[in-house]
């Protein structure tokens, strides 16, 4: 019996030690060291406390198992009668206390450093939505074209439902990644539009809740350009497991170029909003948007999951007055899971998706709405 216990423990600890051998990814055992000063300090702190725990465990379990092996009645052990010893008790109160102090000192240091978000060179506002992220670059120049976009899961529903093979970055890939420069102090101002979410990228050692109505700060200086992935880490409803984070870290010069291009595109959207959209374009773009944003609730066939999520096929709001469809999409249905897409999608996309729901799933209304009209609705409605 005892040998079984030992075997099991050594097995457990054996696996525990495997990480140093750099095991295969699917057997990943430990926290990543990460790519920032803070993440490495966090990792070191983690390892320090880990070894302390192992050391304490070895001592405590050592005495315990030694007693179990040697002081058993079947081996003829006679119970001792010793009892209470103030000396021993003081020692086993003080020693843990000192160990804790030894751990608290580096912990305090790392925490204080992590909290110092001052003197940032770039500010990005991160907003959590059910179930996507919005990134807004806060330009110092108020007249600059605003760069902001939504970032949603890019993994296809077919992969999730096991109809096709899963890709390498299954559930960890997005359509529009956050892009930041390397070796630059980037400050994140985090908030949420609906419920709590948490923005977490393990390699930055940042995990912060995004709270509607409040701002949480956090910052990074990423040393190595590359792609870093993370996930929402606060239960935020049905699709909580499906709102990943992808960060592309570029060399500062590349970042500048990227940023300028984004500003350019933002300008273009403004222009295109005034251009006419054809039915075919709208339906194609709409189908795309639908599969990215709407299927989770309304399902691929537009049948929804009543009663929680209504069917769009044949729905009064999707087939009746077009103004109502527009209002539903732009402003959402307050107090329900139906979010306001007025800000999440640009007018061209909105026009496409509105047109799409009115003409897909057998909703043959045949009519369509133009980006300019949607824009007018948004501007006028607010």
């Amino acid at each position, binding site marked *: 019996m005892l040998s079984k216990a030992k075997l099991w423990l050594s097995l457990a600890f054996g696996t525990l030690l495997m990480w140093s051998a750099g095991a295969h990814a699917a057997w990943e055992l430990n926290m990543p060291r990460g790519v920032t000063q803070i993440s490495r300090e966090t990792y070191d702190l983690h390892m320090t406390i880990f070894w302390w725990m192992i050391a304490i465990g070895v001592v405590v379990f050592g005495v315990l198992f030694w007693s179990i092996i040697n002081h058993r009645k079947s081996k003829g052990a006679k119970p001792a009668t010793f009892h209470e010893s103030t000396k021993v008790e003081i020692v086993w109160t003080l020693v843990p206390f000192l160990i804790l102090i030894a751990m608290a000192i580096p912990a305090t240091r790392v925490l204080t450093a992590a909290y110092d978000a001052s003197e940032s060179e770039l500010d990005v*506002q991160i907003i959590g939505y059910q179930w996507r992220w919005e990134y807004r670059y806060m330009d110092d120049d108020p007249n600059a074209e605003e760069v902001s976009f939504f970032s949603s899961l890019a993994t296809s529903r077919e992969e999730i439902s096991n109809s096709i093979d899963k890709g390498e970055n299954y559930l960890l890939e997005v359509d529009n990644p956050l892009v930041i420069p390397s070796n630059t102090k980037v400050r994140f*101002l985090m*908030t949420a539009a609906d419920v709590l979410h948490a923005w977490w990228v393990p390699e930055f050692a940042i995990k912060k809740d995004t709270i509607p*109505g*409040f*701002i*949480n*700060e956090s910052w990074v200086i990423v040393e190595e350009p590359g792609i870093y992935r993370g996930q929402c880490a606060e239960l935020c409803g049905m699709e909580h497991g499906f709102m990943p984070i992808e960060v592309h870290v570029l060399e500062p010069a590349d970042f500048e170029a990227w940023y300028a291009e984004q500003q350019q595109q933002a300008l273009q959207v403004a222009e295109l909003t005034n251009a006419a959209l054809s039915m075919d374009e709208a339906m194609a773009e709409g189908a795309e948007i639908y599969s990215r944003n709407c299927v989770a609730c309304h399902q691929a066939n537009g049948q929804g999951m009543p009663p929680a999520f209504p069917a769009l096929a044949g729905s009064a709001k999707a087939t009746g007055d077009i103004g109502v469809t527009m209002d539903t999409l732009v402003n959402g249905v307050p107090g329900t899971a139906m979010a306001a897409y007025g800000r999440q999608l640009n007018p061209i996309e909105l026009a496409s998706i509105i047109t799409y729901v009115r003409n897909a799933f057998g909703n043959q209304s045949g009519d369509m709405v133009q980006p300019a009209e949607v824009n007018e609705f948004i501007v006028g409605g607010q």
Partner: protein
Amino acid sequence: MASESSHSVYYVPEQTKYPFFASIGLFFMVFGLGSVLNDVSAGDSVAVSTWIALAGFLLLSFIIFQWFATVIRENHAGLNNDQLKRSYVWGMAWFIFSEVMFFAAFFGALFYIRTLAVPWLGGEGEKGLAGEVLWPEFQAAWPLVVNPDPTLFTNPHEGLNVKEWSVSFFAGYLPFWNTVILITSSVTLHYAHVALKAENRKRLLQWMFVTVALGILFLALQALEYVEAYGHYGITLDSGIYGSTFFLLTGFHGFHVTLGTFILIVMLLRCLKGHFKPNDHFGFEAAAWYWHFVDVVWVGLFIFVYLL
């Protein structure tokens, strides 16, 4: 009969039907109540739910009444020894402690809101970034009469707090008079207790009557204040956090006063029936403790909700 020696037999009651049926009553009461609320939110008819809730409530009340009656009868029959009486004392004391903690939750919420959340939303303090970035228009203040987002939570017109520290102001300040009334009622109740112990039946009844009257007066004034708050001041449950904290704190207090008054009325009736003896009247004492507790909570309320 059973309490001569200090280790006389502890009265362990026979089987009892009360708790099981009380649970059924409780179940239907809360199930009905939940359904009423959901029906209202869904815009459905509340008729059925209301009946369920009411039936549950009546069953529960009926049983509680019977239950207490049985306990009283047992006491009169001399089944309760001193030890059992001490159990009741401990029971009541710890029950009041649980009530203290219930109010502590609401006071805690008030302190948190006032010293941390509202200032942060108003751009002050360590997390004032929230105000700067998200609520640039919003100013922290208490009483909070301009909400961060007035389109979602209609602003009240003004707060109910003390506006100036002058005799003339307090003379016309209803919460102040309510404080006076409640403290007085605690004193009168104490006199009633003294009279009970002195076996002065007339005094006892007089003081009890006065106490109950003061309780009812308090409730009436509180109701008046609510009418004022809703009508004149525009402070409602949905007028933002000031109204939320105000109504939940004073509301639960008012609910406890209502309950306390009801208990005192029962005690008054029991006094009339001559239930209490100078050395054996824990029912009365428990009611008194409860009343004093409710009084203390009010003093806390008066200080933190109205004065400061």
